[in-house]
């Protein structure tokens, strides 16, 4: 699914990723760890196609519409409601049975009551849950999750555990996290950066 050879990424003069070789097979679950600034987010952004390598090569065998990317920011419009945001992404990703799927996700992640509220009015944890919904909306083959547990309360974290448990083995996942123990039982591989 993902093949990297000598992958490197610089930002100006600063080299964030250096000489990375990677092989991620279909349905693997790779846990990426490392201190702040070690390039975890950069690696995920590269795999998503938001960044291009400045050194080396990277192949990602998933087309754009089949990738789900969870970033530090929720990537949703603050002034639109949760429902409107998911509807927008649902339309852009041509999600079949869009309304049902959105309703199902909102309910699963406890956002149904808040669905008509502006995202700016939601708490950080709720925003993170919404971001998860956005990421899962189109049932991607490849999931790139950058610190998915950040900002989640216990209930949210449990929901995420359940989701990951369901996804592991059926999709390919790359997870960058500061708490690798949480997903350790599901992981097929680990990558320590920095």
């Amino acid at each position: 699914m993902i093949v990297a050879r000598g992958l490197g990424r610089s930002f100006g003069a600063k080299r964030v990723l250096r000489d990375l070789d990677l092989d991620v097979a279909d349905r693997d679950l790779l846990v990426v760890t490392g201190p702040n600034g070690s390039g975890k987010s950069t690696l995920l952004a590269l795999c998503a196609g938001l960044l291009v390598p400045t050194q080396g090569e990277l192949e990602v065998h998933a087309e754009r519409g089949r990738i789900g990317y969870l970033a530090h920011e929720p990537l949703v419009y603050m002034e639109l409601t949760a429902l409107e945001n998911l509807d927008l992404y649902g339309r852009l990703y041509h999600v079949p049975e869009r309304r049902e799927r959105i309703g199902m996700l909102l309910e699963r992640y406890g956002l149904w009551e808040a669905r008509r509220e502006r995202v700016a009015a939601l708490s950080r944890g709720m925003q993170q849950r919404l971001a998860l919904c956005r990421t899962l909306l189109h049932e991607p083959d490849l999931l790139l999750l950058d610190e998915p547990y950040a900002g989640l309360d216990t209930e949210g974290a449990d929901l995420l555990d359940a989701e990951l448990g369901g996804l592991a083995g059926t999709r390919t996942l790359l997870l960058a996290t500061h708490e690798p123990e949480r997903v350790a039982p599901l992981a097929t591989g680990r990558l320590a950066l920095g």
Partner: protein
Amino acid sequence: MPNSRAVALAAAAAGLLLVGITLAFYWVPNAPLEGFRQRIFYIHVPIALTAYACFFWAAWKALRLVWTRDQRYDLESYTAVHMGVIFGILTLVTGSIWARTSWGVWWSWGERQLVLFLVLFLFYSAYFMLRFSVDPGPRRASMSAVYALFGVVLIPVSFLAIRLAEGLIHPVVFDRDIGSNLAGSQLLTFLICFAGMLALAGSLYTNELTGKRIDERLSELREALS
């Protein structure tokens, strides 16, 4: 270790310009309308045409960057724009001097080439503002390339606009010995000067590009060692 091509270009530039300017000032007959003052034409117009050539070269390199995604072209495009701006400024200066000697004014909105170059100068100066305010990387390279392509499209469109604007907004164009009826000695002198200016631009371009590539390599090595 001097690059032989760079040396050849520099020598050609020096030679051609020396010959060309000498011819322009000593050999070519006086122009009927303006007299001796018209000779600046042999400097001004080649500089202007060379500036255009630089901008088109930059656009070509920009197109190559967009096509191939090869980052090498970014520096080449940037350097070409830089050369274009230098020659553009020279065009404005020589044009202004010519206007002063011809009509006693330092600027005339009726002078199409000057106005066009002013617009282009503003446009390509913004190119540098763009580059300086974006962090180096593939993104900056793409954006610069797109902007450089816009510039080259702007040249004919602006020229058309300036022509349309005449009579509407500005006073009538002054009469001048435009080089449209060049013949014999005039043509030869013009071509020599033009070739010389192109060689000069090429020489400066090669120099600057080499220098920048060395800088690039240096910072790469420095980074690899740290």
